[in-house]
């Protein structure tokens, strides 16, 4: 099976010294070039980086869901996967925004789940004491559960437009989600009909076993950050977390994150992910090696735009295609990632959890 390829976009690149004007990263023009290049190269998806509050140092980011929505009409094939934080936000708004992004893209939407543990971010909301770190993932798991239930709360055939009886909707095909958890309660149903994919693709970045297990419980795709010597070990830990979580159905798609840099002049880069500096041949070799160890896809983080992205779309992708390692796929994002069609938990015959 050929590799799956994604690009992670963040402001002017992932290197803190990547040159570029801070305010320019808020304009549509800044994003349209890179995302169109990813679209044309046949990449499976791009993620749009974000945090709830501005980072401790350096310039802030625009709201990633809105950036993805702004880019949706400019792209045809590439999946759009914004980061959105669960910690200080409303699960109801998250669910409807992401469902709407799925409509805007015709079924190419995803979501990278993030939690917020910094006290500075809690102060931006101000309403409650920050959650202890040990509970952030528990609350996030509840949020993902609510978001997913709301996506299912309309059956695909709920809108009937039956002139004879005057009914627009078959209300028996729309369901309260009645979630009551430790952190919040949500009644439902959604205000948005079920999105084109049924369930947009849920992803999470994970560095530790507890987050692997969070991903195993909630996500479709996990981004991991192994080094050359730890790939098999990390893959093994993810699979063990799936077993521990009792995951059933489709296994997690494991993507490795890599920082791609051809800019040694920017200085050393302190990153959670392995940094690959050098010509695309070396990167292609690495991808092939890691694939043999259980990595199914890669999310490449260009260190500086536009050069490091061009190295991916113009040089790496043709090289991978020539080697038979990558072939662009068509269809909705779930299909491109080999995820099965999303069953509706509320549809007739389904077992309601």
């Amino acid at each position, binding site marked *: 099976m050929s590799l799956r390829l994604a690009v992670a976009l963040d402001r002017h690149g992932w290197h803190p010294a990547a040159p570029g004007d801070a305010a320019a990263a808020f304009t549509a023009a800044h994003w349209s070039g890179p995302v169109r290049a990813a679209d044309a190269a046949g990449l499976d998806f791009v993620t749009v980086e974000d945090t709830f509050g501005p980072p401790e140092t350096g310039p802030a980011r625009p709201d990633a869901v809105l950036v993805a929505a702004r880019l949706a009409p400019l792209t045809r094939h590439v999946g759009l996967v914004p980061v959105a934080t669960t910690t200080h936000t*409303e699960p109801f708004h998250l669910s409807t925004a992401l469902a709407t992004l799925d409509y805007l893209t015709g079924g190419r939407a995803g979501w990278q789940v993030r939690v917020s543990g910094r006290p500075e971010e809690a102060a931006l909301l101000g309403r409650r004491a920050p959650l202890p770190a040990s509970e952030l993932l528990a609350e996030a798991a509840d949020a993902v559960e609510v978001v997913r239930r709301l996506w299912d709360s309309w059956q695909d055939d709920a809108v009937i437009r039956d002139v004879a009886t005057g009914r627009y909707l078959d209300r028996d095909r729309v369901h309260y989600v009645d979630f009551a958890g430790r952190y919040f309660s949500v009644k439902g149903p959604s205000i948005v009909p079920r999105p084109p994919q049924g369930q947009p693709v849920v992803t999470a970045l994970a560095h530790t076993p507890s987050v692997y297990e969070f991903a195993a419980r909630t996500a479709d795709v996990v981004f991991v950050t192994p080094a050359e010597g730890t790939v098999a070990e990390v893959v093994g830990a993810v699979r063990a977390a799936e077993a521990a979580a009792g995951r059933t159905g489709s296994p997690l798609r494991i993507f490795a994150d890599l920082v791609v840099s051809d800019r040694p002049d920017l200085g050393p880069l302190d990153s959670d992910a392995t940094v690959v500096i050098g010509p695309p041949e070396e990167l292609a070799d690495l991808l092939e090696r890691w694939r043999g160890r259980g990595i199914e896809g890669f999310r490449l983080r260009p260190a500086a735009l536009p050069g490091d992205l061009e190295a991916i779309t113009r040089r790496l992708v043709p090289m991978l295609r020539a080697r038979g390692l990558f072939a662009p796929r068509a269809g909705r994002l779930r299909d491109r990632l080999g995820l099965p069609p999303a069953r509706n938990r509320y549809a007739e015959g389904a077992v309601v959890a």
Partner: protein
Amino acid sequence: MPKQVILGAHFPGVNNTTVWSDPRAGSQIEFASFAHLARTAERGRFDFFFLAEGLRLREQRGLIHDLDVVGRPDTLTVLAGLAAVTERLGLAGTLNATFHEPYELARQLATLDHLSGGRAAWNVVTSSGAFFGANFRRGGFLEHRLRYERAGEFIRTAKRLWDTDGGDFAVRGAQFDIAGRFGVPRSPQGHPVIFQAGDSEGGRELAAAEADAVFSRHHEIEDARAFYRDVKGRLRRYGRNPDDLKIIPGVSFVLGDSDADAREKAHHIRRQQVSPQTAILLLEQVWNRDLSGYDPDGPLPAVDPDVSDHTVVQGRAGQYPDRLATAREWRERAEQKNLSIRELVIETTGRQSFVGTPQSVAAELDRYVQTGACDGFILVPHLTPTGLDEFVDTVVPLLQERGVLRSEYRTTTLRGHLGVS
């Protein structure tokens, strides 16, 4: 130069104004529908596109309401998408001050303003009800009397954040106690345009203090003039000029080849809007009782409305403060004219604001604006997504000939279009 007519395009909403049963009615959720209406409005050199917000599906008698359009997208997400398919059109979204939080919403609106090159607007509404709260963390805690306190503090807080140009802020008030770095650099408009839609005393004061425009419900000319005088008269107290706040009622329209043709079309549309089932449902909103056993083609109920606190309608502002008086009025009218329930409801509720030929409608719109009834209109078409096509093809050129509507955009931001600084 005569006073310019401000024009907004309202996406057809989740109520019985929107006719879904017509063969021409398209999707209420596909992005193509939103894009069509927005592009049509931009072709007509409108000032802005306007979108409502959903927080919960409406209910009547404890059941999800199934007769009108149900379901809609998230407001901000659609507006961000529309920024890609339009160039100059303002993008106004309704967002509830009770179920959003200032830092997050200020950041989203500033993001939208950046991504659209200065075209974002926020229609501030408030809610106190536990009905909506059931979908949100806060539940229904906000007391009714506090809703404008929260809305006012929310708007002032958002403005404070926008003014930081990405820097530090600290806000301590009755509703919010927040501090930190905003992060978002100053957006093209500085402050996205603020709409206010509440009609109560508190809503009017809030508009006079903080808003750039009012989305009003007053469209009968004398009523509109009274509202216009009232709200504009409040501005001085806040050190503002009458021109700083634009009064823009939501209106509907029907066009025909002759006035008689337009009236006939209007009646046909009213019959589509009030199906037999919808007639009973609208009657229940006055009677506050289960009337499902009544024949829509028969006479009005002899029983009086239920005036207890219990209410059959959820998720919609109450429209009938004195149920007994309304019922008395409706019965008298039905007896006088020998009207059935459905005929009475068709005649009494939601009649179109402007009905006539393109010439007469253009003249009437212009008269409203030139004679102090309003500063412009938010047009609410009854059909998705083509309901504005005919207006743009026929009425817009007449308004342009009259010199009251731009033929080309001369400004790039919504503040520029509206002439509010």
